[in-house]
């Protein structure tokens, strides 16, 4: 739900990355975090298992700056894609203003894509929302996959409402910003339209052509363009063995569907680790690699000289309860 706050002179909107497990939602957000200008982004906070599967959500604020006197901010969230986590996924969807559906191009994942899209429709319905009235776009991610389905086939199976679509290779950063830009534009347009009396519902834009990867953000997509590369990345996350195993607690609740080799290191108590990356964190794999997945909020933007530590741990439903601790230091307001 858009919040318009005339006292703070702010407009806040909530954008959610949705889609099946492992489709690349968290990766999208990591790229946005890595590449957005320093002054526009806040920290990236992840509530995930040790295996880096999203457990509750990833979150980062993105500040568009001053728009006609109102500081306009997007709160970006990802949901956990695994079927098992529907209760938390639904919570993240509450009050959503726009959705980026991240689909996996692997032909074998098509049924999961369809199931997840259907699940999105149903979860929105539970909040009394009709997907056709909600700004949303679809991203066909993992275009580099050897077994990638054609865009036409994906379109006909998934894009029921003719929303804008984008090709992406998220972990190389391709297609991430064009997707977000278009959706953000649709959300802002819907706010503007609401404001003027809501003559039309914020339905999908007419554009049907899928924007190809490797194109600059603003360029409209010529359909002939080939994907930037058809070659498969040598190792789509060789550093990614750290995400192979779910946290012990989660593993007992439900073993990782992917049955990867368990990582022996770092058996942890039931608490879900919270990752917080600094604004200028270097490589993605670094973001993910986390020897000590504990809450850590770096003192970015601390205006006073005093130190600040916030420790948060959130134990979740489905298995657990939520706990938050704040420790406060310097003075801001």
């Amino acid at each position, binding site marked *: 739900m858009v*919040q318009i706050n005339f*006292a703070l002179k702010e407009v806040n909107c909530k954008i959610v990355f949705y889609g099946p497990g492992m489709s690349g939602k968290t990766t999208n957000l990591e790229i946005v975090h890595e590449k957005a200008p320093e002054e526009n982004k806040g920290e990236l906070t992840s509530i995930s298992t040790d295996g880096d599967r999203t457990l509750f959500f990833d979150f980062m604020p993105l500040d568009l700056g001053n728009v006609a006197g109102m500081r306009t901010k997007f709160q970006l969230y990802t949901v956990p894609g695994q079927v098992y986590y529907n209760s*938390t996924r639904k919570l993240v969807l509450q009050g959503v203003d726009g959705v980026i559906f991240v689909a996996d191009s692997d032909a074998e994942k098509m049924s999961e894509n369809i199931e997840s899209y259907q699940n999105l429709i149903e979860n929105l319905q539970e909040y009394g929302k009709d997907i056709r009235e909600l700004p949303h776009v679809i991203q066909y991610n993992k275009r580099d996959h050897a077994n990638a389905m054609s865009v036409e086939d994906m379109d006909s199976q998934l894009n029921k409402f003719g929303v804008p679509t984008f090709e992406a290779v998220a972990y190389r950063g391709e297609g991430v910003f064009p997707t977000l830009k278009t959706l953000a534009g649709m959300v802002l347009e819907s706010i503007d339209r609401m404001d003027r009396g809501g003559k039309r519902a914020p339905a999908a834009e007419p554009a049907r052509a899928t924007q190809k990867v490797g194109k600059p953000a603003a360029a409209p997509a010529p359909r002939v363009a080939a994907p930037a590369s058809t070659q498969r990345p040598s190792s789509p996350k060789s550093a990614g063995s750290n995400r192979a195993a779910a946290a012990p607690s989660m593993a007992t609740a439900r073993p990782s569907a992917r049955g990867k080799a368990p990582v022996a290191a770092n058996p942890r108590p039931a608490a879900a680790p919270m990752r917080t990356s600094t604004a200028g964190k270097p490589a993605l794999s670094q973001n993910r690699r986390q020897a000590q997945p504990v809450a850590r909020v770096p003192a970015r933007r601390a205006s006073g000289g*005093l130190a600040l530590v916030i420790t948060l741990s959130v134990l979740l439903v489905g298995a657990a309860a939520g706990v938050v601790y704040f420790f406060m230091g310097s003075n801001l307001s």
Partner: protein
Amino acid sequence: MSEAKKMSRNDKLRHDRLTFYKDDIDKIDKLLAEFLRLSGAKSALLIDKEGHLVTKRGEIKTIDIDTISALVAGSFAATKEMARLLGEEEFTAMYHQGERDNIQLGLVGDRTLLTILFDDRTTVGMVRLYANETAKKLADIFKSTMGRQHESPDLGADYGTNAKKSLDKLFD
């Protein structure tokens, strides 16, 4: 889609947003300041259920209000879901105890959360007592503001075009 639903779409869109006007926030700020004085708590944040800050009072010493607001809303939502599964209507309050600082969360009306930070200069009993009173008064303010949300457009006429420009700038 039924006719009735079509007719109400415009209303629904407006209902789908939360608008706070300066004079209402001034009233809220006053209430929060009074609450802090009476209870001895350090600070109070009013956060909407989507995790956006509405207003804050007191010594707020954190670097990232956006993140805190998102986490507060998330953990409250999770708790609420737990309540539902246990057959409770809703847990209307939550309390987190730290070594030095504590947090009390309470529902205000059906759309906002009052988040109170306090330390050992006061007690959870005092905080809860005054928080309940304050929540009631806040709920009254919200009730009286609801009707006003249908007034003239809220954002400037140039908001849409300026927003496009800003997006181009951010994503170029």
